[in-house]
């Protein structure tokens, strides 16, 4: 029979092999749904690859798509490190987008170097504020934050719809529920001419680096990790539990809010109720692929974004539904948690019953 023996230390190469292997396994498994849908498998993979990294356009498109995923990936990674199960990044993203629109569509007149930070701050604050509810419910009532953050997602999206049909509706949109466009001063600059990748990517990368420094090098980060690894021991040692939880929540919700603000201010230019194709949930996959490491979030987000962008290309060319991308992403999540198991444990085949 098979025994799992815990490794004393996980070698670095193995901690890299787990997510890479998981991503490859998920891609290989994609052959099954491709075959079922009757598509040519080889050509499907070629299109997937070409569409995500095969040209400058594809690359920039992947980077544009990776931007919100880095943010939501960080939101999940930072929260999960402290065992705060924030599954509400989707809702927090919309809250951030809404705040960005409120600030950035003409309510405030200011030059870009004031307005752009203001828009981003508003987005972060809205995302963080939204997470305060579940955090309060958790500490005050002991209500599981998984359920409350998940349910909040639905409430927020309904709220956004309500706003888009009401006070925030663009009178020139011909009845279509969307917000007024962002003023020019509130728009994030493009990084590459005529491509969609925008300065939000730099903000996202900066956030990832800052999170890494925070977690590994600072007192607060140390406390966050301690609370996540063992709440009982951290509490005994006098780590301020409420304060740490609050800081994690502010960071996590803030990152998710930034995802929404950057999408609006960098990519779309206005808000609709279908702004996010599930970036909040995909952020969980990104975080797990990254092994909850903030720096790992960047490549993980690029991978997931590549799958999304590549699947779109494939869908357009050979008519395979782009829900295939969601399927690959879901499979890579399951593959990576199993892969992590193989990284942490050594698998030994032993004679039945002779286990130790």
């Amino acid at each position, binding site marked *: 029979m098979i025994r799992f023996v815990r490794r004393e230390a996980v070698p670095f190469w193995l901690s890299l092999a787990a997510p890479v292997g998981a991503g490859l396994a998920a891609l290989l498994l994609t052959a099954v*749904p491709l075959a079922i849908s009757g598509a040519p498998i080889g050509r499907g993979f070629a299109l997937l690859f070409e569409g995500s990294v095969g040209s400058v356009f594809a690359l920039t498109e992947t980077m544009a798509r990776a931007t919100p995923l880095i943010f939501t990936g960080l939101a999940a990674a930072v929260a999960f490190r402290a065992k705060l199960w924030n599954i509400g990044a989707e809702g927090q993203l919309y809250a951030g987008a809404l705040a960005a629109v409120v600030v950035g569509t003409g309510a405030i007149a200011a030059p870009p170097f004031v307005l752009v930070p203001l828009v981003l701050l508003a987005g972060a604050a809205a995302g963080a504020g939204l997470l305060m509810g579940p955090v309060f419910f958790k500490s005050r009532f002991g209500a599981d934050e998984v359920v409350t953050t998940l*349910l909040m997602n639905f409430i927020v999206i309904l709220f956004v719809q309500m706003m888009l049909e009401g006070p925030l509706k663009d009178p020139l949109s011909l009845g279509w529920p969307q917000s007024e466009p962002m003023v020019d001063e509130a728009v994030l600059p493009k990084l590459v001419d005529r491509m969609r990748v925008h300065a939000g990517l730099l903000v996202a990368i900066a956030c990832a680096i800052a999170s890494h420094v925070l977690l590994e090098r600072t007192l607060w980060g140390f406390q966050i990790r301690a609370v996540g690894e063992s709440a009982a021991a951290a509490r005994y040692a006098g780590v301020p539990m409420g304060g740490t939880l609050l800081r994690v929540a502010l960071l996590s919700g803030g990152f998710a809010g930034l995802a929404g603000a950057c999408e609006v201010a960098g990519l779309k230019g206005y808000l609709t109720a279908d702004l996010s194709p599930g970036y909040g949930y995909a952020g969980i996959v990104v975080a797990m692929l990254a092994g909850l490491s903030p720096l790992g979030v960047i490549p993980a987000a690029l991978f997931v974004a590549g799958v999304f962008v590549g699947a779109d290309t494939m869908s357009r060319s050979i008519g395979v539904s782009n829900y295939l991308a969601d399927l690959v992403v879901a499979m890579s999540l399951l593959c990576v948690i199993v892969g992590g198991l193989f990284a942490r444990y050594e698998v030994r085949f032993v004679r039945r019953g002779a286990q130790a």
Partner: protein
Amino acid sequence: MEALEILLQPSFWAAAIRIATPLIFGVLGALLCERAGVLNLGIEGIFVAGAMAGWLSVYLGLPLWGGVAVAALTGAAFGLLHAVLTVPLGLSQHVTGIGVTLLATSMSYFGYRVAFPNVTSPPRIEAFRPLDLGPLREIPFVGPILAQQTALTWLAFACVAVVGLVLARTQLGLAVRAVGDNPAAVESQGLSVTAIRMGAVVAGSALMAVGGAFLTMSAFNAFFFGMISGRGWVCIALTVFASWRPGKALVGALLFGAFDAYQLRLQTVSGGVVPSQIFLMLPYVFSIAALLVAARRADYPRALMQPYFKGQR
């Protein structure tokens, strides 16, 4: 006073029960898993998969009950996946559950698109009809309410009784309750913790999937994207509200159903002054409130989310 008159209409109560039915299945399934010590956040995706699989099989020619069986088997399969990853392998139940939800949802949506690449309006099936109760229809007030219910609703009621009886009065029930409290107690009596936990998760997931199938095979007659819209998560909240008891699960689901049906009717009565989204938010607010009310005094199964490995105590 229109708002209060709603409560006197049999059609309102019939709708409440109709809305409650999938939740009854869902909460029963969730409590079965959690009683055995496994949180199953795959529920949302299993709802989608059950709705899709049941409906598609009927569309492809199976009889209605065959569709229900296919839905249950689909749920069981996803339950097995969750169980394998969380019970013998002991992986995080939170993350695995979310993974199962993402997988089940994307597989269902992808499968739907493969089956119907270019349809704009969803294909329909001949759904379950209300069960003919014969003379019982004539009972005042209650008769018309019950006469509108389909066989799946009656199956849900039966499941409440069966799950309740099994948990309270059988060796199997003892084992499930014990394994969620102290797995070592089960192992010391020569039973397999792994088998009992996995069995409970598989059975619970099958129930969840039947809840999903109710939506496409009884409440509606077609499959839509986003039709589950958080019903699974609502069930997880209601499970805490029900303190993991089947009887209370029924009460919780019916309360939710009544609340949802009430807001739907209030929407029409209010005459469009209040935005419809406010009403649509109410069921989610209700679920959070139910969770808050129950969470403080909730007696969680002691071994919930604690993986167990053989010989460990």
